[in-house]
């Protein structure tokens, strides 16, 4: 069990971020594609040329050479060695550490069994399905007995059923392992994270415990990555004042004058096209974008977002004035206390 800290600067890719994981915990790096998550992981593993990465393991500077770092990386593309059998792929780490051929084979077969691929050791990577290849890559990384495990979008590119199987497998295997997992999916964060860091444009926008960041986000960006909306305002007489005269009654919260917010799931936010009179607290806004999400469309405004049935979104386009209905009585929480980012 190893605690990890890393300060990564890769100017060529616009990345400047710091992450920290306590021993045996899982940090989820949550961010959209292109926010620099993969670069952070690769730099921590030591394989980004020109990166300035200060990595410590249990407070000691990590060795420069990747092979001495013992930081495992599960890359998005699996990167299985195509010229070796599945077993030799998994045995590669143990063999590199000096284990004998027979012992390494044994270790590899044990790992293959642990990831549910008993008996597939003689296959070539090319003959595996996407889910099987991901499992082999996971087994290969863990068989090398890394002190810290980095997983780059471990469930991306898998169909939903396989992805949830692999998610369950990873959740089990990472118990007690210091790990950093990148994802753009709030579900992964909820399923795996002890702590969450939200990445935006190469740096960490917000970090904290999973409960804090996912259920009480302090920035609209973190809220969106966590699949929620954040309504920001100032406490005034038992309500959250978003703008002059626009108030959302809340069920409780910090004292008057404090910068605060309430958060809701877009599915709980109502949408109206004409000025409504009753029901939730209505906030006037304009459509900024429409995001298809299966059988619903997430209508994004400047301040809020709401999920509506596909047919209800048919007449909407960017600029259409709309009213978002925020449920009354949500718990408000202060946005100023604590650092937004480390």
């Amino acid at each position, binding site marked *: 069990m190893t605690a990890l800290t890393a300060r990564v600067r890769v100017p060529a890719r616009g990345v400047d971020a710091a992450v920290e994981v306590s021993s045996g915990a899982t940090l989820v790096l949550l961010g959209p594609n292109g926010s620099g998550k993969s670069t952070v992981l690769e730099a921590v593993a030591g*394989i980004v040329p020109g990166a300035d990465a200060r990595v410590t393991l249990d407070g000691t500077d990590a060795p420069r050479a*990747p*092979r001495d770092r013992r930081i495992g990386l599960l890359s998005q593309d699996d990167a299985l*060695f195509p010229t*070796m059998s599945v077993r030799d792929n998994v045995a*590669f780490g143990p063999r590199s550490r000096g284990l004998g051929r027979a012992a390494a084979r044994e270790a590899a077969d044990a790992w293959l069994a642990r990831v549910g691929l008993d008996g597939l050791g003689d296959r070539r990577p090319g003959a595996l399905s996407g889910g099987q290849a991901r499992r082999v890559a996971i087994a290969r990384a863990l068989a090398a007995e890394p002190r810290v495990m980095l997983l780059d979008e471990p469930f991306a590119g898998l169909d939903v059923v396989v992805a949830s199987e692999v998610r369950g497998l990873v959740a089990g295997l990472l118990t007690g392992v210091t790990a950093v997992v990148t994802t753009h999916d709030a579900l992964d964060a909820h399923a795996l994270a002890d702590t969450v860091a939200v990445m935006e444009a190469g740096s960490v926008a917000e970090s904290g415990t999973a409960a804090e960041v996912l259920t009480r986000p302090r920035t609209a960006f973190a809220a969106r990555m966590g699949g929620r909306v954040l309504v920001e305002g100032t406490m005034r007489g038992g309500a959250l004042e978003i703008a002059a005269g626009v108030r959302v009654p809340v069920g409780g919260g910090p004292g008057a004058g404090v910068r605060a917010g309430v958060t809701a799931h877009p599915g709980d936010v109502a949408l109206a096209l004409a000025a409504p009179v009753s029901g939730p607290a209505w906030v006037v806004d304009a459509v900024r974008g429409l995001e298809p999400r299966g059988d619903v469309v997430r209508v994004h405004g400047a301040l809020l977002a709401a999920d509506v049935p596909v047919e209800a979104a048919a007449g909407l386009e960017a600029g259409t004035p709309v009213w978002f209905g925020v449920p009354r009585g949500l718990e408000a929480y202060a946005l100023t206390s604590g650092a937004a980012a480390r």
Partner: protein
Amino acid sequence: MTGPRWLAPLAALGGLLVLLPLLGLVARVEWTDLWSLVTSQESLTALGLSLRTAAVATLATLALGVPLGFVLHGMRGPVRGLVRAVVLAPLVLPPVVGGLALLYAFGRRGLLGEELGGSVAFTTLAVVIAQTFVAMPFMVVSVESALAARSGRHEAIAGTLGASRTRVLTRVTLPALAPALATGAVLAFARALGEFGATLTFAGSLEGVTRTAPLEIYLVRETDPAAAAALSLVLVAVAIGVVALAYRPLRGAA
């Protein structure tokens, strides 16, 4: 892709340019005497020497050309272009010029003549050196272009798994380069087998020592055209056989 139709007649012309001389050669072969001509003592000696030296030269291009390809791939900027041009020069140099250059380097009066304790010129070693000299560029080009097609991702991941650089090379990179190495080796072998000019200039034409099959053919073409044709046919057969068996065009992605 197939290209426009007018390519076809030009392609046919190109094919004929290669095929007709081969047919001409086959037409000259006296089939009844073929076996005895090929198995004559001179022919067998020359053929055996050719196969042995070309095989050793191919191994030498592997041992030296592969590292050269790696180093070249690792270079950056204008230096790389310059070094590549020098390393590949034997490919475009007239072989006789190459032979002269080898003589001036390793011959009795050459740069290293003293250091080599006399002369390697006019020995079987000289044949191998001449063949390696002209054949190595094929290996270098093969390796360099195969490396350029690789992302380096597998090597990086192998590093995170704890592998030393040597282990990454032998277990990850070289196996992935196997098709390119095979291609390079086949081309190098074929080139070494056909070497004539540099060999004659640098190694001479001593029977059993430096007189390879191409030299033997050149020597007997006036006095014994039938033997020359027979031996030529063998070389053609070996060349086509080797290339057909082992040569695969390099693919873009490795």
